[in-house]
């Protein structure tokens, strides 16, 4: 009951907040009801997250405050009573059975994701930080700075709504159900907006097909139902797309605030959003005359919507894009050496250079889509959780459409969107650091929309059948993958499986989390299996070698005595570290653990064996045995007495 109420009130607060923002900015009128409902969610999703940041840093992440704010924002939904415009109706030549078939597919995908929303979360990244940081924020009742690269000191706009869901649900099991329920709701909204917005150009059948294709892309199936932020950042990109199209169509400044909000919220959700801001600058230049004024409006709104997390980083580290601008912060004397040092920065640079080396050469601008779709390399993560085949399959009909309409392209309201897509792609390939296809997921709805509009318009409808076939085959693959992915969730629901059993089956190392929870007097645990943090009841400290300085655990750099001191400084009472089956690396963590054990500073508690797999869906693909040791830090050992 409470989780359901929490999800409903949060959804109402989001749409209410969005409706109010749109009304204040003059963007509520002149839209059809469906489009403005989904646009309200998109804008409200960013708006409520923006507001929650201030509530969080003020230390008001408490149930009464979040319920009160949500109820207040929900009043914004009364704006839906204002008259809306009549929806555009494009001629639909699709037979009725096709429409019904698409509607049935929509229900199937919705059911799969709904069932996932009822099960305990089991995705690695989600449990490592997307849900764990909100859990920690809720425990503290406030936002606090986490000085860890990649999953701590990052823009956390979207995580604010996760925290709200958890708080509204009251934490614990109810809070978790509210959180997964909220993931389900928020994970579908970008498709809703894509469908509603697509109706401006496409008939219902094509618009629905495009929205379904996006919702069931393997990367979406994997990300939308979990806490992955990309599926939700698509809302912000679509907000910007709506703004670009309207700014171009109406030749007014007003819609540019939507572009600014979309770009700002994207930047506040992930560093990659900064590339999107640059991208939007280029796109705004193509929306009409008075470019300077347009850029000023866009820039001001973007800065307001997106600055907070960069400012948060800056006041704690001296580097707004921690740690990517460390050298500049260091040169200006602003760097906080308690958080990052030149030595760590040099190690980190080597790491980034290595990760980004896959797509460094020039040819990747052209070959990336082909390689990512047909011959994926591991770094792209584009195989099982990729983008599906549609983008390649649809190329010829889309190319024909573009060629046939080449004289009208520059005048199209979608032209600034096409500029946005092109510039973002170029910037992402060049500066995106890690070439995972999942990272371009937020701009995919825009690409899909432009491709489909071009394809449907092609040469006397010559592209319709190939495009239809491409859509059919792609949906077939997507639904096959979605079905496989959902099998465990269906089993969970159908058999009435216990949550513990589900987690034992689907979360590798869950036995280790259970073992840690069974150990008495654990105040905080140092852990190497990052995805277990959400289910460990005590406070956790993720090892994150080379990504944080609080405990220097870089292999080859570890001094046992310093390690012991740093563990104590972080109030760690226990460690859960991988077992050393072979002689440990000199100055490595396992060697240090062995040395501290010999000195009596670490006392062995338990060894836990567990299975490890790379795919939750296809566990038998890579099944490995793993072993971890739980140690207790002995505060009475000689080392601590000498300190």
């Amino acid at each position, binding site marked *: 009951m409470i989780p359901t109420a929490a999800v409903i009130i949060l959804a109402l607060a989001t749409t209410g907040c969005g409706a109010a923002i749109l009304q204040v900015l003059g963007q509520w009128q002149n839209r059809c009801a469906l489009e403005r409902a989904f646009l309200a969610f998109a804008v409200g999703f960013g708006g409520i997250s923006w507001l929650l940041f201030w509530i969080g840093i003020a230390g008001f992440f408490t149930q009464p405050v979040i319920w009160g704010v949500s109820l207040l924002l929900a009043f914004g939904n009364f704006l839906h009573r204002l008259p809306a415009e009549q929806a555009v109706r494009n001629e639909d030549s699709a037979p009725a059975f096709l429409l019904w078939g698409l509607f049935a597919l929509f229900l199937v995908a919705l059911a799969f994701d709904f069932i996932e929303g009822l099960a305990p979360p089991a995705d690695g990244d989600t449990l490592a930080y997307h849900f764990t940081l909100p859990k920690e924020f809720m425990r503290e009742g406030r936002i606090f700075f986490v000085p860890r690269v990649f999953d701590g000191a990052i823009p956390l706009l979207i995580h604010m709504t996760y925290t709200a869901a958890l708080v509204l649900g009251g934490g614990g099991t109810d809070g978790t159900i509210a959180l997964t329920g909220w993931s389900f709701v928020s994970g579908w909204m970008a498709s809703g907006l894509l469908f509603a917005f697509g109706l401006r150009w496409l008939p219902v059948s094509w618009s629905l097909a495009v929205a379904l294709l996006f919702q069931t892309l393997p990367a979406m199936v994997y990300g939308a139902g979990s806490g992955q932020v990309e599926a939700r950042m698509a809302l912000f990109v679509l907000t910007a797309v709506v703004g670009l199209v309207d700014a171009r169509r109406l030749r007014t400044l007003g819609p540019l605030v939507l572009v600014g909000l979309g770009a700002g919220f994207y930047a506040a959700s992930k560093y990659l959003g900064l590339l999107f801001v640059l991208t939007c600058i280029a796109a705004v230049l193509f929306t009409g005359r008075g470019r300077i004024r347009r850029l000023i409006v866009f820039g001001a709104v973007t800065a307001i919507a997106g600055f907070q997390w960069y400012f948060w980083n800056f006041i704690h580290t001296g580097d707004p894009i921690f740690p990517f601008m460390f050298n500049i912060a260091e040169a200006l004397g602003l760097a906080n050496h308690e958080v990052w040092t030149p030595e760590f920065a040099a190690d980190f640079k080597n790491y980034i250079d290595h990760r980004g080396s896959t797509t460094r050469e020039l040819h990747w601008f052209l070959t990336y889509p082909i390689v990512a*779709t*047909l*011959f*994926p390399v591991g770094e792209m993560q584009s*195989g*099982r959780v990729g983008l599906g*085949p549609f983008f*390649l*399959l649809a*190329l*010829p*009909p889309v190319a*024909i459409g573009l060629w046939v309409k080449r004289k009208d392209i520059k005048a199209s309201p979608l032209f600034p969107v096409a500029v946005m897509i092109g510039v973002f792609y170029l910037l992402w390939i060049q500066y995106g650091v890690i070439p995972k296809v999942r990272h371009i997921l937020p701009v995919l709805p825009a690409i899909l929309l432009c491709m489909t509009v071009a394809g449907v318009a092609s*040469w*006397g409808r*010559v*592209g319709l*059948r*190939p495009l239809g*076939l*491409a859509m059919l*085959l792609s949906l077939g*693959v997507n639904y096959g993958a979605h079905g*496989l992915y959902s*099998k465990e969730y269906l089993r969970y629901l159908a058999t009435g499986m216990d949550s513990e059993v589900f987690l034992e089956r689907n979360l590798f190392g869950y036995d280790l989390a259970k073992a840690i929870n069974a150990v008495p007097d654990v105040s905080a645990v140092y852990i190497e299996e990052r995805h277990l943090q959400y289910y460990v009841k005590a406070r956790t400290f993720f090892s994150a070698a080379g990504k944080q300085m609080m405990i220097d655990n870089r292999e080859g750099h570890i001094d046992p005595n310093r390690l012991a001191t740093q563990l104590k400084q972080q109030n760690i009472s226990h460690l859960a570290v991988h077992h050393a089956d072979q002689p440990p690396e000199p100055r490595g963590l396992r060697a240090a653990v062995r040395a501290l054990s010999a000195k009596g500073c670490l006392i062995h508690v338990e060894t836990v064996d567990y299975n490890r797999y790379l795919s939750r*869906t*296809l566990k*038998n*693909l890579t099944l490995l045995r793993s072993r971890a040791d739980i140690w207790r830090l002995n505060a009475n050992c000689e080392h601590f007495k000498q300190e």
Partner: protein
Amino acid sequence: MQAKESVSRHRRTAEVLCLAWVGIVFAVYLLQFRSLFPHIFRLLSS
């Protein structure tokens, strides 16, 4: 009349080529997952 027929023939050719592209690329796409098929069948039969 002849020009109209020629355009129609070109369109037909373009459509066939597009369909062929879709078929071939889709087959190549599926090929990358061939090593997964035994695992998928095992999963489905479990």
